[in-house]
């Protein structure tokens, strides 16, 4: 397994990837299970437009954040890949 032309720091790459993954999953959890389910009653006291905020997160907001999360993940992974010499 050593026919790579450049030195790849696989260990560093993997730990950076795992760290990024965990922090994004925290946000994923917070906007769906958090805002949309567990904290809904609290958030529903606030309104966004004409919708209670918790309800809105469960039916709209979480989905928008999910899309943003994946694209941010792509962006951050490209950066990690450059940093550790991994060619994606």
């Amino acid at each position, binding site marked *: 397994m050593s026919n790579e032309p450049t030195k790849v720091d*696989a260990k560093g790459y993997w730990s950076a990837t795992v760290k990024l993954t965990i922090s994004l999953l925290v946000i994923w959890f917070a906007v769906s299970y958090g805002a949309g389910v567990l904290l809904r009653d609290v958030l529903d006291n606030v309104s966004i437009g004409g919708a209670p905020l918790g309800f809105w997160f469960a*039916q*709209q907001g979480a*989905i928008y954040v*999910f899309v943003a999360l994946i694209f941010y993940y*792509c962006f951050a992974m490209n950066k990690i890949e450059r940093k550790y010499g*991994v*060619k*994606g």
Partner: protein
Amino acid sequence: MDWTIFFVVASFGTYIGIALWARAGSTNDFYVAGHDVHPMINGMATAADWMSAASFLSMAGLIASLGYGGSVYLMGWTGGYVLLALLLAPFLREFGKFTVPDFVGDRYYSTAARVIAVICALFVSFTYIAGQMSGVGIAFSRFLGVDFNTGILVGMGIVFVYAVLGGMKGVTYTQVAQYCVLIFAYTVPAIFISMMITGNPVPQLGFISNVRGEDVSMLENLNQVVTELGFIEYTSTNKSWIDVFAITGALMFGTAGLPHVIIRFFTVSSASAARVSAGWALVFIALLYTVAPAVGAFARYNIIDTVNETTYIETDDYAVAAEGITSDGGTPVPEWFKNWERTGLVGFEDMNGDGLMQIRGPNAPDGLANEVTINNDISVLASPEIAQLPEWVIGLMVAGGLAAALSTAAGLLMVISSAISHDLCRRTLFKGMSDKTELRIARVAAAGAVAAAGLMGMNTAKLAFVAQVVAFAFGLAAASLFPIIFLGIFWKRMNKEGAIASMAFGLISTFSYIYYFKFVDTDPSHWFLGVSPEGIGFVFMFFSAIIGIVVSLLTAPPPQEIQDLVEDIRVPGTRTRHGSVDEDMGPMDDHTPTPAE
């Protein structure tokens, strides 16, 4: 009627044309469309693959009747893509083979594991596909005046042409066309209806806007309307939070574990393309999924508004009777209701004998009984009629519903045929089979699966039954497939024994629980931890992961080459370089990519 025929014929013609253009020449084309689909194109195809007759026809209706409770579908069926993008898709693409059982069989160096994964994949896909076929039958029987079973036969014929001839390549490009049809069909009526109710043409904004010309928000108004009739508030639910949590989880993890979704990510060129592609897929899915709650709320509003307290018409001569009622100062039952009554999906029984149609919830303040039954599934298909939109919108809607059903059916057929021809025949029973033979078997298997799916569709005439069965698909994918794929990537120590124990537990426990509480004991108070059959896959997923980990730790670690394989799939670029010498790769070696591809 004419518009409907026009849209259906035009869209079907397009699909066939694309299928003839994109014929598969090798197993590589047939299973993974040559591994070179553009990430955005794959994202669009994934969205069509994913959004089924249930998403298109049933989901908004479910949301309309469940209100906040319907959020489980919205969060569950989109949040799964985050898991897919972060935890599975890039690594499975880096692994670089054809099917989910392929990964399981190689990662766990075991034929038994491969065969169990084949069983899971087949079970999940067959339960799912029956629903698509009966969706096709419903669309045909209501709108084209064709018999339900004939409708299914026509649908089978179309899918046969592009799935059997074109394989994944044909399926990919027809799915792109089907996505365009279905998203257009879903959004156009939603825009019209949003304009009518709120004055805002963007349904996502109309959803949070005020009722047109009034100083009260649409949702607040809806809450008021439904509570006055004795329903619970639209923005609340009577499900326990634990159940909402578990169902959302089962749908999310189930989505990420569904084989027909995962295999779409084998068609792109690299791990990073798989990540981007998952993002695009979710963008295209979100276009429909953020409109759906608006469609649901508007439908609930419109149905109550047009039906409640109107005078029922018994006779077939609608126009004359309606005129009579209007001239007496009453409001006649809307014509769409009479149209749909023939399908049995809506019904009226005059409990108090006053000739008026009362819609009431379980706690109606005036003590009246509910007299009107409306099947959730019509909320979308009937919404253009309810809102009195022009006839071409209805035709468009039908073509969209068919596109959603057919594209998902085709994706599932690919899973079924590759599980049989590749995993069962080539990798298990007849090792050393040639690429040509395998391709032939794949086509025969796809043809057989089309026939089987059609027959299943004919025997499940009601979508409501299908919705029940789909609970099986997600629960099983979450509890049996997700844990072992995830652990297979993120935990090197996971071994064959652990994987088999985990899959077997997930499959048996989830299947038994759902079967028992759906068909034997339907009393919710007996549920384990208060979790419904729809959500149980989420709970058993954790058990199945724990069992896998414990069994792995008690048995010997996986061989060194497997641990190396795991290291390789974690880092993009390494596997494709090493993996090409794997003697089992078979078809991949036959494929010599031309530089211009």
